């Protein structure tokens, strides 16, 4: 039997999903390998918890697998898969919000833990960098979801405005407006961080 191989640079996502729709499971595996880490980073920044994020990414691929025939080639595969992941992440946030409303812990000052990235060499600079990342993540968490999703897609994932518009099914003008407002809000919340860096640099 001829062994099929996929060159990452040659086969597009859309061709892979087309092959998968025709029953080629190997094509699905390639898509999983391509998107698992970038989806994880998107969802992790969205929900702020690594375990939940990995579960959501698993669920995203399960849905892609089960609903493969719903994908139409009019949209990019990345648009489709990010839409699914984003919707699942928003559902998770809504679930948490409901849980907080009925939870006693709502009345206590809740301190949340974040995954601090692995630091191999432990120099002071890297520790400072990890703390800064943590502070930025907390500020992202405080953003309303409609600003958070556009900021993550634009500034963390690096999507074009047009594709964000397709992923979220909102007009291009709304995306630009939300990105601007989200950035303004974030820089206001993180003013102390960048002011300190400014004074160090001077």
């Amino acid at each position: 039997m001829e062994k099929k191989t996929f060159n990452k640079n040659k086969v597009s996502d859309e061709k892979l999903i087309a092959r998968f729709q025709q029953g080629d499971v190997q094509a699905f595996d390639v898509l999983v390998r391509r998107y698992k880490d970038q989806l994880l980073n998107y969802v992790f920044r969205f929900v702020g918890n690594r375990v939940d994020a990995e579960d959501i990414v698993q669920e995203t691929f399960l849905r892609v697998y089960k609903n493969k025939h719903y994908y139409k080639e009019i949209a990019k595969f990345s648009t489709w898969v990010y839409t699914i992941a984003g919707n699942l992440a928003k559902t998770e946030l809504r679930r948490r919000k409901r849980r907080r409303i009925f939870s006693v812990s709502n009345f206590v000052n809740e301190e949340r833990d974040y995954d601090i990235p692995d630091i191999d060499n432990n120099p002071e600079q890297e520790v400072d960098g990890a703390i800064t990342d943590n502070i930025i993540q907390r500020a992202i968490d405080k953003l309303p979801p409609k600003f958070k999703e556009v900021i993550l897609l634009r500034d963390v994932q690096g999507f074009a405005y047009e594709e964000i518009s397709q992923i979220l099914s909102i007009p291009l003008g709304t995306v630009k407006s939300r990105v601007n407002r989200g950035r303004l809000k974030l820089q206001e919340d993180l003013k102390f961080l960048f002011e300190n860096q400014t004074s160090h640099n001077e």
Partner: protein
Amino acid sequence: MNNCDKFQQSFSSYIDGDLTPDSRKHLEGHLELCPRCTETIYRMTRLRDSLLTLPRIKTSAEFEQKLQHYLGYGNRLNMARYPNRQFSWKYPVIGFAVVFFIAGFFMMYSPSHPEVDFNPPTESSFSPNISGQSVNQRDTDKIPATSQPLDTPQEADSLYQNNDLEGGSNNTIKLIKESKNR
């Protein structure tokens, strides 16, 4: 809306380089005169750079294996520790059916319900043909009323031994002995 608020709406486009040359020139003219807006744009640029360089995390080593397991393909040998998402009633139902069948079989042929059908000696009226009745019931109800006195208590004991009667017949022996004494 003051002048700064109006310009703020195009800060992101300015940072991303999406402004038309005219709009860009107009905004830069304002920035030369407004240190507050200049500072805001500086912080927004730093923020965008920080977001782009946030550390990237990777999925766990068994991510793909877990996914393949949930989807029902892949290497099943290494997946014993991951619970299967699809619960099947087939095996529990078969298990219960087997257990009930075995339990029913033992209840039907249990030693606690002996099919006692012995023929006593014709001389004695003790224990006429009683089939399928428990020994203890016979002990208490039938024997004293119908039995003839036996010669010795030893005879009574031997009679019980011969008829393969088991524990719980002490009352009967006692009654037989009493009838003998009378």
